[in-house]
């Protein structure tokens, strides 16, 4: 039998760049295929060829053995190929059914009326058939990102797609939504649909796909079955050299106290308490990690520390001085570097070029400011040095921040903040959206800072990251630390328990630093109620 999708010898050249070089790809009907590679490896280009957005320079696309030539996505859609882009193509104020049928509306009254009942029925039928739980009359802006993604899938199915291409489908989903998506994959493939998804995350490819094709620099490095391959092998295929999956930390005696946080409470933007009395300290030459499911008060805690949010109670002491009421600029001037969680919102000005972005936060200081003017020559040299040291691509200080991929934006921010020569680095999700080669590099830089005797506060939802890099690891749940543990001895199950709001009475807990939940009956009861669905068996 012919494979559902067969791309034969695809080469795609852009002026000056070969994005795909003689790539072969075969995907069996009813299977899930992951297209794995680092940013810029040519995954999206290859899929855009399959979806008819680009015409290949050389090579042919076969569907079920039939050669195809697509002039536009319209042709691809007609041939049964559907694509779900990373940024959803949905009209927010319109309803689910309006979005699903957009452009292919069923009509009555000689075309003068959209047949709403038929459209709604088609949507309900499809979502029942594939086990989606979607209300056809809900507005897109009112439903969760996970549901929006299903609407995108429904759109493709409504147009008769047999082959579904998903571009980085889990990038915007919560862990629970990711699990649901894998279930959707299963349901779809059971009914004969073929799925290709683009990813740069090894774990995701290994858990969701049947087969994995790895692209590197536009070349197919190999296609492997998921059962016969390890993470390390895949990582090596992607990067082209051996990758140390676990950063090596060398024991080191921490120095002076750099940051001291005492009983800090903070509210979120709606005025609800998000941080409920957190205390810890970070010493020089130490990485203090905070793990937890996103949205458990990490953002507000970090904002209270970095001077972006007023703590409602408690105190933050930095280098021996209280920071209450200090402006954001004072925080920067005193050597506190900050890698924010939302790089596009807070890390960069998207319409500025890298020269301008490179001096953000230092624009008052020499050498960038001199006598009321900005020294653009110094600024450019600074940006160029960050670009070179942190391997930002394209290496062009005049490129606008928005023209860079997410991973490169992140590398630039990290570079800018590290080069401030800080005493404390507050890093939130420093490697989110960054490919594994660069992640390894950023981890190494973080550890170098630690070796230089800097203090690092690392907040991340990636468990292996915080566990691998931290000297001490706190777990936050609903605004309180459920435990501070030694990452070298704690098990993943134990961290899972802490993240779900349980406490450990084990020895691995550093008793003194733990928020004592047992003596706080109110807090305990609340924890039990809310953790219901997430409990982990020890």
């Amino acid at each position: 039998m012919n494979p559902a999708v067969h791309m034969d010898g695809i080469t795609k050249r852009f002026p000056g760049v070969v994005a795909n070089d003689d790539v072969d790809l075969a995907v069996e009907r009813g299977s899930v295929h992951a297209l794995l590679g680092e940013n810029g490896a040519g995954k999206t280009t290859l899929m855009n060829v399959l979806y008819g957005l680009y015409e290949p320079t050389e090579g042919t696309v076969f569907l079920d053995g039939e050669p195809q030539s697509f002039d536009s996505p319209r042709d691809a859609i007609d041939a049964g190929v559907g694509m779900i882009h990373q940024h959803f193509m949905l009209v927010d104020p319109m309803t689910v059914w309006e979005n699903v049928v957009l452009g292919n509306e069923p009509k009555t009254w000689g075309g003068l009326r959209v047949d709403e009942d038929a459209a709604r029925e088609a949507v309900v039928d499809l979502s029942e058939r594939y086990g989606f739980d979607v209300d056809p009359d809900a507005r897109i802006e009112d439903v969760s990102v996970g549901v929006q993604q299903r609407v995108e899938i429904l759109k493709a199915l409504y147009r008769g797609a047999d082959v579904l291409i998903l571009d980085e489908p889990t990038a915007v989903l919560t862990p629970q939504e990711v699990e649901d998506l894998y279930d959707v994959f299963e349901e779809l493939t059971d009914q004969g649909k073929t799925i290709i998804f683009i990813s740069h995350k090894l774990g995701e490819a290994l858990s969701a796909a049947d087969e994995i094709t790895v692209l590197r620099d536009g070349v197919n490095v190999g296609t492997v079955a998921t059962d016969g391959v390890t993470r390390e092998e895949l990582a090596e295929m992607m990067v082209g050299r051996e990758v140390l999956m676990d950063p090596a930390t060398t024991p080191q005696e921490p120095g002076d106290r750099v940051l001291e946080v005492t009983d800090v409470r903070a509210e979120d933007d709606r005025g609800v308490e998000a941080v409920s009395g957190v205390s810890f300290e970070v010493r020089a030459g130490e990485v203090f990690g905070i793990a937890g499911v996103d949205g458990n008060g990490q953002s507000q805690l970090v904002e209270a520390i970095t001077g972006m949010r007023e703590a409602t109670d408690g105190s933050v002491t930095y280098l021996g001085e209280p920071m209450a009421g200090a402006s954001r600029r004072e925080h920067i001037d005193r050597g506190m570097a900050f890698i924010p969680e939302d790089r596009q919102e807070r890390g960069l000005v998207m319409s500025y070029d890298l020269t301008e972005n490179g001096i953000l936060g230092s624009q008052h200081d020499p050498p960038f400011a001199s006598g009321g003017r900005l020294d653009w020559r110094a600024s450019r040299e600074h940006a160029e040095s960050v670009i070179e040291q942190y391997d930002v691509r394209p290496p062009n200080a005049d490129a606008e921040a928005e023209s860079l991929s997410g991973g490169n934006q992140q590398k630039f921010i990290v570079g800018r903040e590290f080069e401030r020569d800080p005493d404390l680095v507050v890093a939130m999700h420093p490697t989110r959206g960054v490919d594994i080669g660069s992640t390894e590099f950023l981890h190494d830089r973080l550890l170098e800072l630690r070796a230089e005797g800097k203090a690092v506060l690392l907040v991340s939802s990636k468990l292996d990251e915080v566990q691998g890099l931290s000297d001490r690891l706190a777990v936050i749940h609903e605004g309180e630390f459920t435990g501070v543990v030694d990452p070298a001895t704690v098990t993943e199950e134990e961290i899972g328990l802490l993240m779900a709001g349980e406490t450990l009475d084990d020895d691995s807990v550093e008793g003194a630093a733990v928020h004592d939940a047992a003596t706080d009956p109110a807090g305990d009861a609340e924890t039990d109620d809310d953790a219901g669905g997430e409990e982990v068996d020890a």
Partner: protein
Amino acid sequence: MRNPLADVTIPILDDLIESDYVRSLIVGTVGVLGALLVFGALFPDSVAGDLSGIVFSSSTAASTSRLAAPIVLAGLGGIFAEKSGVINIGLEGLLIISAFASVYVASVVGIGNAVLGIPAIWVGFLAGVAASTALAGVFGVVCIEFKADQIIAGLAVWLIALGLAPFMSTVFFGGVNTPNLGARVSWRYSAVMVVVATFASWWALNRTAFGKHLRAAGENPKALDTVGVSVSKVRHAGVLLSGVLSGVGGSALALSIGQFVGSGETMVQGKGFIAIVAYLFGNYNPVGTLGAGVLFAGLDAVQIRLQQLGYAVPDTLVQTIPYVVVIVVLALVGRTRLPEAAGEHYETED
């Protein structure tokens, strides 16, 4: 606090109103008029009595209808353009050009003559629509194909028409005002056109596939593009419709008098800009736009009559009534939401 006006059910029209905002607008207007009617009937000699006499007279109805036609029709046109993502602030210019073209062509054909069995005045009417549509077409090409700034291009449309119409009038008729045709289109035709256009627009926007595409083009053009519908075509259609509807409005305005007045701001006198306020006020709903347009036109008609009653209030102050009302109502009833991609150019990716 919830606006209590938004909870009132309106018979017949109820299904056409999708927002609390438009609902409160209609209920409020009807309520004020009703109170005026009651007070006017109870106290015929008071100010309320005078006002009620003016508001509910047939001559006020006629002049309201005449003044409302360009506001409502251009406003409806503006909805089509803006929903598709092109902000057309050149509506004023479209009204001016169609007002002049209709009178000019009607006079060239000659009242009493006919072309293909169509009487001269209606030939003029169609010519006005054609002129406005053509100018809107140029505006569309400039904005959509050449990606000019919509606000600047819209201002250019207004300024071109503002200069061109009186100039042509001077060339052809020897003065900025054309001579009177000696024939006119009855205000009843205007009223019918306004009502038909309102409901047809509502249907087109809310019930047809074209309406959905229009909305998608203005909210998230990429979503429309990726399902294979041309964003440019949809936007051109939206802009052209703004030309057609404004043309009907401008022609109706000029032909209801039988003359084009080109002095000062011309006879259009900012009605194209009031039209923009009307559709924003009506929250892009044609029925709301009709209500807002009639309200402004009615206030205008009433203030003209009030000036004649000789209250000890300066005329210039009376003339500001419609504008004061606009501001008061806007402040009281809240805000409208612009389409997400309005004013932004769209480029396909292949």
